[in-house]
């Protein structure tokens, strides 16, 4: 068995097609008939351009416009006067086309690969891709036509270039193995988009296999087997069936409402960090956005985002969701984040310090820019405002007063917004949990942030390995806190959601059903999984389990019981 990086989930069993690296060496010679050489070069460039354009179009249609940008970048680069232009000059001076291509590309590869910037270094590999394609055209080397491989093929390559990936026919390729690349590499992204199991970065795999060898690709675990015995194959055939069945079952939940086994409907939303993520939420069948973190607008830039910039970003997410709820959490930052223009001082205890709503309320001009941006976006769909790190009632009142101020200003300016916009609070501190009944009278909704609630309730810094063992949402203290918050919200008749990781945890879900959670907000990729788990529990069963859990006194016992009873 060989180990690699699990890059695209699933099991593939099939016959290997080894994509060999070609020998691209050539003899550098002096050219006398430079016109003929230029014609040979230009025809290679023309073929390159038309092939690349076709690949870009192919990727755009079959995978998406974002993925096609890489090929479009190749086109822009080759069209550049310093690329084909410089190459032509060298040919005119008597160099052969292969030497000209190599010299110019290598110069740029050297230049870009030395840069500190990751994105710029990526350009070096783009140029290398261009160089290889041009040399193959000039030397008349034909690649294996990936689009024509037989059904049941496992592709093995040193690296999967975008040009190779664009030719993959999903029905014929059952697995991908490469020697380089990680989870965020181009090949990983494309493999996941095509739902083909892939294991990347398997050392020397191209030297260890031959064409037609049998291979098992376990893209969930990152394992690869070459010519395994019958027993291993039959194990993996079963595993593959289970995976396919589970995926198919999940697909049955596409487009369905989220209901418990006894028919109670709940909302299943997504957590997002940028407006573009909203598209992902729609693709994954999220029913709304339960947490839109607004920090991205403020990070990695030299100055405060203007009201208009913020408005545009919020509007983009709101329009993408087409009338479905979008809950925007206002700025949640503190001394732990490096945002120079905010002038926040480094603090000894940033998580207990000047941050989130505390910072916003004492910088009301900055805060009002954000609130106005959100209010303006509310004219385009259903938007809610969420206040982070609330610890006392005054904070909610103060934010609501600022929201009123902004509304009056906008009204005077004749700008449209939703008059009935809801203002709710994150419940993520021990203080907020203890006064949840009082907050419920001021806030229009609650959202429980389990990550921070666990950290603040257990007084534990989860980044500190010595105490990380205490960091668990299944600690009796945290569970009691969650129960208290949900019950206080239900009693006051306001919606209670949860936007921490726990909302998608199969062990936590039955407890949340029992406590009466109304809205689950999860990572977009977990929507169908969460919907499937919620559908398996009735209130009665969940209540019985919750009663047992709440009688236990240690986290260990609780997790053991939940695992034993998990569906």
């Amino acid at each position, binding site marked *: 068995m060989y180990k690699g990086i699990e890059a695209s989930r699933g099991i593939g069993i099939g016959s290997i097609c080894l994509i060999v690296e070609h020998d691209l060496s050539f003899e550098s010679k002096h050219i006398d008939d430079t016109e003929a050489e230029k014609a040979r070069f230009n025809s290679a460039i023309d073929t390159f351009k038309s092939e690349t354009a076709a690949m870009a179009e192919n990727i755009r249609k079959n995978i998406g416009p974002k993925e096609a940008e890489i090929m479009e970048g190749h086109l822009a680069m080759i069209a550049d006067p310093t*690329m084909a232009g410089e190459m032509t000059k060298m040919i005119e001076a008597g160099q052969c086309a292969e030497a000209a291509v190599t010299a110019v590309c290598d110069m*740029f590869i050297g230049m870009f690969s030395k840069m500190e*910037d990751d994105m710029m270094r990526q350009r070096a590999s783009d140029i290398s891709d261009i160089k290889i394609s041009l040399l193959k055209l000039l030397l008349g080397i034909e690649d294996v036509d990936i689009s024509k491989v037989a059904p049941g093929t496992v592709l093995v390559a040193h690296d999967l270039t975008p040009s190779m990936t664009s030719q993959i026919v999903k029905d014929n390729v059952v697995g991908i193995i490469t020697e380089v690349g990680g989870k965020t590499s181009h090949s990983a992204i494309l493999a996941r988009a095509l739902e083909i199991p892939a294991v990347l970065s398997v050392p020397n795999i191209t030297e260890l296999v031959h064409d037609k060898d049998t291979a098992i690709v376990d893209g969930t675990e990152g394992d690869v087997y070459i010519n395994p015995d019958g027993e291993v194959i039959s194990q993996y055939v079963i595993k593959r069936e289970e995976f396919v069945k589970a995926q198919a079952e999940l697909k049955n939940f596409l487009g369905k409402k989220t209901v418990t086994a006894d028919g109670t409907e709940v909302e299943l939303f997504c957590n997002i960090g940028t407006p573009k993520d909203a598209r992902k939420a729609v693709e994954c069948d999220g029913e709304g956005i339960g947490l839109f973190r607004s920090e991205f607008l403020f990070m990695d830039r030299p100055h405060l985002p203007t009201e208009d910039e913020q408005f545009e970003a919020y509007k983009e997410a709101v329009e993408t969701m087409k009338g479905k709820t979008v809950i925007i959490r206002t700025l949640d930052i503190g001394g732990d984040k490096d945002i120079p223009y905010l002038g926040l001082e480094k603090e000894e205890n940033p998580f207990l310090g000047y941050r989130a709503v505390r910072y916003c309320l004492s910088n009301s001009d900055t805060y009002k820019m954000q609130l106005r941006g959100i209010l303006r976006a509310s004219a385009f769909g259903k938007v809610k405002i969420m206040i982070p790190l609330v610890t006392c009632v005054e904070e909610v009142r103060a934010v609501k007063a600022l929201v009123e101020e902004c509304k009056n200003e906008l009204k005077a300016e004749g700008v449209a917004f939703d008059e009935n916009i809801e203002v709710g609070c994150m419940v993520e501190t021990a203080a907020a949990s203890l006064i949840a009944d009082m907050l419920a009278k001021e806030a229009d909704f609650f959202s429980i942030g389990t990550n921070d609630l666990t950290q603040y309730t257990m007084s534990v810094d989860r980044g500190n390995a010595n105490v990380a063992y205490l960091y668990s949402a299944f600690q009796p203290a945290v569970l009691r806190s969650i129960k208290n918050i949900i019950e206080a919200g239900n009693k006051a008749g306001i919606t209670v959601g949860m936007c921490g990781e726990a909302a998608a945890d199969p062990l936590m879900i039955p407890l949340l059903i029992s406590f009466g959670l109304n809205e689950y907000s999860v990572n977009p990729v977990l929507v169908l999984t969460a919907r499937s788990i919620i559908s398996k529990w009735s209130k009665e069963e969940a209540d019985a389990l919750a009663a047992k859990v709440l009688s236990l006194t240690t986290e260990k016992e609780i997790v053991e019981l939940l695992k034993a009873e998990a569906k």
Partner: protein
Amino acid sequence: MVSKIVKVTNEQGMHMRPATVFSAAVTPFDSEVKIKFNGNEYDGKSVMMLMAACIKCGAEIEIVCNGADEEAALAKAVELVESGLGD
């Protein structure tokens, strides 16, 4: 010859897309368009050279145009950079 110093304000600096937008917009002008940055001079009509210059957000660059339509070329180039290069 005309020139102007401007500040690059788009978040990512002169990356692939902004560089493509810039070079595509100035290429139709007959004038030469050069970017002076960090003591070097780069061809503003070349995507590759613009990227190679490694111009980051917040950097000050001098745009130098030389030719028959230099005024129009400079005006276009300055407007592009100041508006964030399509980012």
